[in-house]
Structure formats: structure tokens, C-alpha cells
């Protein structure tokens, strides 16, 4: 969490070093900390509360009763397995079609390269839900509404940006001199790609794949609009729980369960997300 990418924060600036504590920073961090952490903390407490009646500041009884109750529900397991199947399918398909394309955009020269690349960035230029409704209109005619593959397609489109522009940057940053050296030593193009280029780009590409997987797992709007009523993913199930206001703890336990993938993503990708290149992908 404390790792800062030097390129964003310009560490090489002449620094006026003083021993004075950074009060402004502490105040900002405290304010943001309260706003960001408190809502999540409340949910975490709810997940382990067996009895929590107003106006007690803390639950009267703690325990795991509702974990058992939540995990005993078949709809939770169905949603979990569906969400995992969807996320794996979408991420694999996305990697299959996007990574070669990213390599081509980064390293090959072909007619229309710039225009085609720019067209991916402009997919951000339309209000997303409006676009989903327009797609849903087409899917309705094709019979893709409320089907697994309809949701796969809509979520696949959502990963295109991430899986193209982050890997493009990764392939562009590969050290050309090393590739040349390998080629001079007699390695063929495929061998050079496999042994020299790919290992250098791999960590960034892995981060992009992980972000796509987690993003797809949490994707709600496409699944809700295209998938309803048959396809009930974890986030969709969560909305039903919120709307129907059944036992408070079910939602809390699900939230805590759903955090696990978030935290993994956070740990592996914070360096990428904190770097300037991530923001540049949004056009700054």
C-alpha cells in the first residue's frame, strides 16, 4: 500500500527537508481514511454479529452462525459457481483475442494501426449503460438475452480496453537490445518472443489479466440487464438480497466473501494501477 511509483510522484525534485511533521498529509489521510474505511468496517462487524439491536454501539453477540446459514444456501453456491465460470471463460477468451492484438499494435506496422487503436480508446466516449441498452436491443432479436453466452459477450466487450492497452504498453517497454542480441545469437522470431520478449512483459500482462478477471467477477450492469432473469451472478444475487431486505447478515457475509478477490487484486496490481501509464489509458 505504501509503494509509490516514482514516475507519478516525481521523487527527483529538490526537497526542502524539514523535521516538521506533515500535518496536512496526516489530516488528509485521516479524513479519507474515515470515509473509505468506516463503511467497510461496519459491514465486517455485521458479518460476525449474531445479535445487534439498535442503539447498541457494538453487537450484543458475536459468532459464525450466519456464515453457516449463508453458506448453506444453494443460491449462493449456484451464483458463486456461475460467476467463476463466467469470469474464467471471459478472461480466457479475452486473453486469447486481445494479447496477440496488443502485440501487433505495439510492435507490428500495418495499415490503419493508429485509427484502429484509437477506436478502442473511444469506446469510453459513450455512456456505458446507454450502450448496454442498445446492445440489449440487438441481443433480444438474436435470442441472447438471459443466456450464458450473451453475458459472456457483454462482459468480454468490457475487458477489451484493459486487455489491449495495458499489454500494448508492456510490449512497447520490452528491451529491444536484448531481442537483437538473441537474434544475433541465432534465435528464431518465435524463440525470441517466447524467451526474451514475453518474460519481460509478463508481470504487467499478468496484472491486466488479473484486473480483467476481478472486474468481470464484479461486473453487475451487463449481467443484470442481459442476464436477467436466468443468469444470477454473485453481484446480482447481492442486489436481490439488498432489495428484499432479508437477514442483514447474509449480505454482510457475502460482502466479506467477495472481498477476497479484491484484496488479491489489490496486492498484485497496485503498482500498475498507481503508475502514470494506467491513467494515461484514460486519455490524460
Amino acid at each position, binding site marked *: 500500500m505504501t509503494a509509490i511509483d516514482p514516475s507519478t*510522484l516525481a521523487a527527483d*525534485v529538490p526537497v526542502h527537508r524539514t523535521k516538521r511533521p506533515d500535518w496536512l498529509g496526516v489530516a488528509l489521510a485521516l479524513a479519507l481514511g474515515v470515509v473509505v474505511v468506516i*463503511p*467497510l468496517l461496519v459491514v465486517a462487524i455485521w458479518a460476525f454479529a449474531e445479535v445487534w439491536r439498535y442503539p447498541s454501539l457494538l453487537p450484543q453477540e458475536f459468532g459464525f452462525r450466519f456464515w453457516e446459514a449463508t453458506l448453506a444456501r444453494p443460491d449462493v453456491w449456484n451464483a458463486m459457481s456461475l460467476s467463476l465460470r463466467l469470469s474464467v471463460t471471459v478472461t480466457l477468451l479475452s486473453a486469447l483475442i486481445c494479447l496477440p492484438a496488443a502485440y501487433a499494435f505495439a510492435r507490428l506496422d*500495418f495499415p490503419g494501426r493508429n485509427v484502429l487503436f484509437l477506436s478502442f480508446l*473511444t469506446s469510453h466516449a459513450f455512456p456505458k449503460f446507454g450502450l448496454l441498452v442498445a446492445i440489449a436491443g440487438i441481443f433480444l432479436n438474436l435470442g441472447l438475452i438471459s443466456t450464458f453466452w450473451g453475458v459472456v459477450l457483454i462482459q468480454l466487450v468490457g475487458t477489451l480496453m484493459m486487455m489491449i492497452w495495458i499489454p500494448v504498453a508492456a510490449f512497447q517497454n520490452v528491451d529491444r537490445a536484448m531481442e537483437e542480441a538473441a537474434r544475433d545469437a541465432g534465435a528464431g522470431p518465435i524463440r525470441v518472443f517466447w524467451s526474451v520478449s514475453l518474460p519481460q512483459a509478463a508481470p504487467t500482462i499478468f496484472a491486466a489479466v488479473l484486473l480483467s478477471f476481478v472486474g468481470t467477477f464484479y461486473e453487475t450492469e451487463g449481467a443484470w440487464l442481459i442476464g436477467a432473469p436466468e443468469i444470477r451472478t454473485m453481484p446480482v444475487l447481492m*442486489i436481490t438480497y439488498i432489495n428484499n431486505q432479508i437477514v442483514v447478515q447474509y449480505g454482510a457475509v457475502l460482502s466479506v466473501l467477495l472481498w477476497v478477490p479484491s484484496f488479491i487484486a489489490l496486492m498484485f496490481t497496485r503498482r500498475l*494501477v*498507481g503508475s502514470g501509464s494506467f491513467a494515461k489509458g484514460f486519455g490524460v
Partner: protein
Amino acid sequence: MTDLASSGTRRTGGTAASNGRGLTGLLLVSAPVALLGWLIIYPIFNAIARTLVVQTETGTAFSVDTYVRFFSDGYALANLWLTLWVTAVCAALLLAICLPLALYLRFAKSRVAGVLQGLALFPMFVPSVILAYALIRTIGPNGGVDLVLNALGLPKINSPYLTPWGPIIGLVWDNIPLTTLMLVAGLGAVSDNAVEAARDAGARPLALLRHIIFPQIGNAMLVVLSFTVLSIFSAFTLPYVLGPASPEMMGPFMQRTFSQVMDTRMAVTQAVISFLICAVFGAFYVRSIAKNREARR
């Protein structure tokens, strides 16, 4: 990231070799480009055509009846106004919160900056469904905030849950990371030398902001603004879960028209109207991406 032109492979071989390469490149990008064409570009034109052309007994005819119906329906207009208002408030709040954060992150060198950056990025990893649930439990009726206020002997808050302020709080929370990141990236364009020089010349912080920093990040701020408007205008999950049922924001309105009222043509009309309203921001967004690419060449 976007400066493709600087890294192109140099044509060293003959025409035949470069033609072969061109074909390989096109082949490799064809699948995602086809998907983009089918599921982003085509639906936009399809939506416009679907709403404007109707099948009658005498054949196809041009009609704007759904648009007339939208703009003469008081409820639809109330939804549109609510959406515009929420979007404007969110954009203003986001700039007010994220600009100081970004300025601090750009110029601070203390260890606190690392913690702050982590905190500012954190909401990116919290899915909006969980956020919605957490906010209901925190600022909803008898939620966490009420518990604390009650323990302190203070009156309860007027809960923003199911009012327009519910989605506003959620959307601002959700958009803090990207807005901050984009602003920090924009502030990267401000040269440290200029700031140092002005500081040495005795410029106060406000003067520094007005004369050195703002002129250089104007474009970045407009990009951030466009991006925010585009993502908030048609937000669905947070307005659906946290917002009022009537009037509702455009996201839930479109969803209801499509899935419950089953009026596909009207839902698509609402989508086209939201495209049109966001077109200015979308066009600006695309133009500034293109301009940045030109500048980097």
C-alpha cells in the same frame, strides 16, 4: 501508452516483406476489432436507426414518435433533470475532493503520501454492490453513523438513503480513485522547475495555483470532467440500489423500461437521448486523446 507512432517497426525489408507483416498485423487485431465493431459501433447506429425507422403497412417510414413521447412525458423529463443534477453535483464534488488530493500527492514527499495514495486507490477495488450495501449499513436509517451519534447524545442524521444524495455519495466514493489518478497524471505536466522558480520568487500557494499550475492542467481537468460525466450520467448499480424510486436516474429508468415495461424501442430511445446529451463530452474526450497523441509524436 498512446504514443504508438514512436515505436513502430521500421520498414527494412522490401515491399513484399512489409506487405506480409501488414497482413499479419491486421490478422492479429481482427478479432477484437470485429468485436468492437459488432458490439460498440454497430449498436450505436442500430439504436438510432431502430428508433427513427418504423415498419408500417405501406413499408418503412421515418418517425420520431418515441422522442416526442419522451419529451412530452413529465416523468421522463423529471428523470432526465434528476440525472443531470446528480451528474453536475458529483462532478463538482469530485473535483473539489480530488484536486487537493492530487496536488498533495504530486508535490508531497513525505511517507504519509504513500498511505494517502493507497487510501485514494482503495475504492477502485471495492465493487459497487458491496459499496452500496456498506453505505446502507453506515448512513442508512439506524446505521453506523446513527449509532455513533446516538451514543454521543446527538440527534440522528437525515438519512440520504433512497434520496438523490444516496447515489451522489456512492458515485463520488466510487470515482475518487480514477479521478485522482487522472489528475495526478495531468499534474505530471507541471514542471517542478517552474514551481520552484515561482516559489523562490516569493509566490504564495494560491498565486502558484492560479498562475503556474491551473494553466497547465486545464486540459487534463476537462478530460477528467468529461470522463466523470460519461460514467456518472448512465450509472446503474448505485442509483438503482441507493437512489429514490421516483423520479429515478436514467440508468435504472432505461433498465426498467427494457426489462419490466418491455418497451425495447422506448428504452433504446432513452439510450440515444443519453448518447446525445453526452456527445459533447464524448467528442471532447476523443479529441483530447487524439491531440495528446499528436503532441507526443
